């Protein structure tokens, strides 16, 4: 089959690789009909996530048709159309039973690696480094899904791939980020980053009752999308001082909650962001957290900082004193995707939300290497890329 394969920093290729097979009784094999490139994949492209190996198959946002099931998988059958969550979870451990799916104890075969770095390991993830399990990803024509009796959600024929694909990651991720803000009537939510995750967070914040959402980025078409698709107010950090502007927009109080939908590769023009750039470029730091610093600084007293953006290592110059002085609450982590798939599918089915509004590029899988770069460099007004592994299909 064809698959998108990581070979090193800035080196992603499409290759022929063997087809996947059932390896465990609860597995399923999916013929992928649509897959997407995520902002998280860009951290791999840019070499920010440790324990990648040349030859790793990428991709964690995908859906398709079941073509094979293991002996113990009684929930799925051949022919089912499913969306697969990017987190792999057993459904039976302490964490799964408490809906903390991305913290599953049993799905990461390389848990010891993550334990060395983090003390304890989260769940396995598709196509996201050996520390996170080393599972082959879904930017491929076929993919093996472990514990497939737990994660995949069945989709009826009335919905298109594009409408439901983002249940695999970014819609639940944006939704959980907003839910973590504990939104009350009258609240203003500030969202750093208007990539796909930011767009979903903005939309979700309104769904959950926010009075206002302020979107922050410096990419004009992304700000425009936030405004047109969800009704956000916008701040372009190329033109304005973010802290001053937010304070001004919130009657001097600061936003009730701040969402960092940027993650460890933030860019910017503030002194600290140059400092991060030099330090990460010279391998003296692991992350560039200047959006997070701003979010902490700008948040109102007693507010929430919600962090869907990915961080990997040790963060430099964190204004922890500010967080403490203002009594902030922090919420973060990989999304507990399974918790949100059904309720969000219901919203899509009712027509309340159509997450496909973020898609700007639809390409065959062969063009994945260029697509990665177009998406990263935000060329051609690229916001979200979906890939078709088998060419165009009916769905």
């Amino acid at each position, binding site marked *: 089959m064809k698959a998108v394969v990581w070979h090193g920093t800035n080196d992603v290729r499409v290759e022929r690789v063997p087809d996947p*097979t059932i*390896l465990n*009784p*609860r597995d399923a094999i999916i013929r992928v009909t649509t897959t997407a490139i995520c902002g998280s994949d860009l951290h791999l492209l840019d070499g920010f996530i440790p324990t990648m190996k*040349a030859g790793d198959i990428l991709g964690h946002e995908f859906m398709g048709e079941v073509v094979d099931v293991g002996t113990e998988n009684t929930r799925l059958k051949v022919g089912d159309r499913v969306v697969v969550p990017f987190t792999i979870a057993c459904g039976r451990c302490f964490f799964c039973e408490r809906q903390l799916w991305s913290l599953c104890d049993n799905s990461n075969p390389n848990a010891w690696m993550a334990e060395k770095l983090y003390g304890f390991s989260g769940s*396995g993830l598709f196509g996201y480094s050996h520390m996170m399990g080393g599972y082959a990803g879904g930017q491929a024509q076929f993919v093996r899904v472990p514990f497939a009796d737990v994660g995949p959600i069945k989709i009826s024929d009335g919905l298109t791939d594009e409408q439901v694909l983002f249940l695999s990651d970014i819609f639940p991720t944006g939704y959980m980020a907003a839910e973590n803000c504990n939104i009350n009537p009258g609240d203003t939510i500030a969202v750093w980053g208007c990539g796909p995750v930011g767009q979903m967070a903005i939309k979700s914040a309104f769904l959950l009752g926010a009075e206002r959402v302020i979107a922050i980025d410096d990419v004009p078409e992304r700000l425009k999308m936030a405004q047109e698709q969800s009704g956000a107010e916008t701040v372009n950090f190329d033109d304005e001082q973010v802290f001053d502007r937010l304070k001004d927009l919130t009657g001097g109080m600061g936003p009730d909650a701040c969402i960092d939908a940027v993650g460890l590769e933030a860019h910017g023009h503030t002194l600290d962001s140059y400092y991060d750039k030099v330090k990460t470029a010279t391998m003296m730091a692991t992350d560039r957290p200047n959006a997070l610093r701003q979010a902490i600084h700008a948040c109102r007293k007693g507010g929430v900082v919600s962090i869907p953006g990915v961080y990997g290592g040790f963060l430099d110059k964190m204004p922890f004193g500010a967080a403490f002085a203002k009594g902030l609450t922090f919420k973060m982590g990989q999304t507990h995707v399974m918790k949100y798939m059904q309720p969000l599918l219901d919203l899509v089915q009712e027509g309340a939300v159509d997450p496909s509004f973020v898609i700007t590029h639809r390409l065959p899988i062969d063009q994945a290497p260029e697509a990665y770069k177009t998406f990263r460099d935000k060329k051609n007004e690229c916001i979200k890329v979906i890939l078709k592994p088998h060419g165009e299909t009916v769905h």
Partner: protein
Amino acid sequence: MTSDINVAGVERWASALGGAALAAYGIRQLKDRSPSGAALTAAGTALIYRGATGHCPMYSAAGINTADSRDDTRTALSGARGVNVQETVTISRPADELYRFWRSFELLPSFMHHLVSVEQLDQCRSHWVAKAPAGRTIEWNAEIINEIPGELIGWRTLDGSEVVSAGSVRFKPAPGGRGTEVRVRLQYDPPGGKLGSTIAWMFGEEPSQTIREDLRRFKRLMETGEIPTTDGQPRGNR
């Protein structure tokens, strides 16, 4: 300590995990030519038809006071000789079920990857075969020295064995209905010479890491019915 306990154990074990599933799992591993797969299939089959072995009625005769020494391996190896390892894991299953699985020694290679096979010789004694460097194996006999059904199993290698080791596993209900805390203690004496280096090799440079991985696989097998893996999945050119 009666045969009806054995049968009950197998049934419970089989319903929790599926004897057939275990045999199937073993057959798959066999295809991968894994020696533990062969052992597992044999064990799975044996369990389905024959039932697990009973408790050892002799452990008190081994001169160990079950009430006091509990899981103290030092009694068995007379003192804190050699290397001592202790690891704990919490498993979301009842203590009784975990105890019964573990007590079916034939099944241990399904999650202890350095083992090739374990054969129950009688109710107290068992024969162990483990991997050794350069594709060789190492063998020894062990006896149960301490056992409280549903709670504790203690063992040591028999006099005259080439490996000198003792161990125990304790199953303690975890608070708040979280299942069972499983604590393994292992002590082994790495004497100089060939066999000393074999056992040191077996447990690696970090013996606690080896035990931790064994326990992790045990937890995963008991909680999910399988051990997660990526062995055999596709990848691109390296």
